């Protein structure tokens, strides 16, 4: 039986960039005990002799001819921006002050 503590879930939420209330963290940690138990069944048959499949098609390096085609105008690209300035996306501060 695998279980995730409230603090484990808090760490995952931090990695996934999702703020979560204490109640949500506690609920998720309870649910995860059940869900992980159910999905851990894959380990029963996943022997070392079985090759993994990441994708249904055996594709490798798909290319198209290197020609310029129409693309979005700056106005179109910015049309959904929550905030913009001088034809650019305006974003909050990324680097810390220290």
């Amino acid at each position, binding site marked *: 039986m695998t279980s*995730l503590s409230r603090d484990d*879930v808090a760490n*995952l*939420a931090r*990695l*996934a*960039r*999702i*703020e*979560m209330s204490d109640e*949500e963290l506690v609920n*998720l940690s309870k*649910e*995860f005990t*059940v*869900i992980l138990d*159910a*999905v*851990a*069944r*894959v*380990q*029963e*048959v*996943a*022997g070392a002799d*079985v*090759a*993994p*499949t*990441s*994708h*249904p*098609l055996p*594709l490798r390096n*798909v290319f*198209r001819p290197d020609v310029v085609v129409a693309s*979005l105008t700056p106005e*179109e*690209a910015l*049309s*959904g*921006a*929550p*905030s913009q300035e001088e034809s650019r*996306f305006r*974003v*909050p*501060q*990324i680097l*810390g002050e220290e």
Partner: protein
Amino acid sequence: MIRNSAAEMAAKLNTGEITSVELTQLHLDRIASVDTDVHAFLYVNNEGALAQAAEVDSKRAAGEKMSPLAGVPLALKDVMTQKGVPTTCGSKILEGWRPPYDSTVVTNLKKNGIVILGKTNMDEFAMGSSTENSAYGPTHNPWDLSRIPGGSGGGSSAALAAFEAPLAIGTDTGGSIRQPAAVTGTVGVKPTYGGVSRFGLVAFSSSLDQAGPCARTVLDAALLHEAIAGHDPKDSTSINAPVPQVVAAAKSGDVKGMKIGVVKELNGEGYQSGVRTRFEESLELLAAAGAEIVEVSAPNFEYALAAYYLIAPSECSSNLARFDAMRYGLRVGDVDGASAESVMNLTREVGFGREVKRRIILGTYALSSGYYDAYYGSAQKVRTLITQDFNKAFEKCDVMVSPTCPTTAFKIGEKSNDPIAMYLNDIATIPVNMAGIGGMSLPAGLAPEDGLPVGFQIMAPAMQDDRMYLVGAALEAALSSKWGAPLLSKIPALAGK
């Protein structure tokens, strides 16, 4: 008129019995009168649809050569971008977003003159089996408004069953086209992976996602399939090969000598008795039509659900990282001095619903160092085993069949607090996505105990999608002659209309 099939509507458009503007208006009127009860649509594009219809009418009047479905209306799942039309994926994080480009599916629809009525409701980012996970409220099953219409494409299936549209687009990652079709008595097809472009389909699980046609008849699904399928240089995973001859197959319906493999593991325990009754009856009808029924075994299918709930969340945790509040969509907490990281954290807290968060966290865990091999790695191996099961079974048969879902439509709210019970809905549909092959669900009748629709699933090898249409058309013909009318003629009237 709105109860006609799309092919019948197209024929009437061709003879001039009706114009596309008139046909579109009839459907817009129907939406206006019943959608307050059904809630299939998140956005109805009255003006855009009528403008598109008028354009088709004038081309037809000018004597231009028209595509088979030109002028027929369609409902588009809200996971597919359409330029300038709101696209939310059932999520608050995309509320108000109007994409600056068309998905390739929409480009193909427009090229074929198919009129897009609006965007249909869905589980948030296609994660769910009931449409209850939409941030904009659930869709109701037209057979019984207290029940779910399936999911994630419950809006598209409900729109068909409520005669709000004769055609719809769905997407299927683990059954989101086929399960809604099953519980609403409609037809839904998940084409072979790569058969229809994913460009402009907002990604959930990229190695599983596949768009496909939803309709009320097998022929209508085939006509729509041909209109949207084909190679697309904008999607590197789209297959560069001719589209299987699905329309010809749907018109033929000849199954004489075909071998139909019944999957031993997708029947019996856990399947509602009325689902089994209708499934057995369908097998008898196919045998009477000349097919040979054989039993096949797929021992690793029992691990498909577990593998799916590792692979799909893993891919989703990566795909949904794009919703970072920087370039489009919701932004919360952007106050003076707030860091980008705190804005992302707050936006994603408010913008995502419970199920989406659950899957992102699960995927983050399954991909984290130390657990990767045990979870995601093992799930990828199961994927290999499932594909091998299919390959072995297809040596003994031309198509494989099973019930689409273990039960008929359940009540809204019945399973919403039990993720595992909800996930079990997809037990028979998931193997198809894992192997990237084609799957179809079509109505097999009503379960005697509750009078609700049951779905019959047909699975075909990759790029042999036409086989599903052959078998589907044969079964549909046999069932309609038994019933004397299409199944949907038995649906209760909505609001007395």
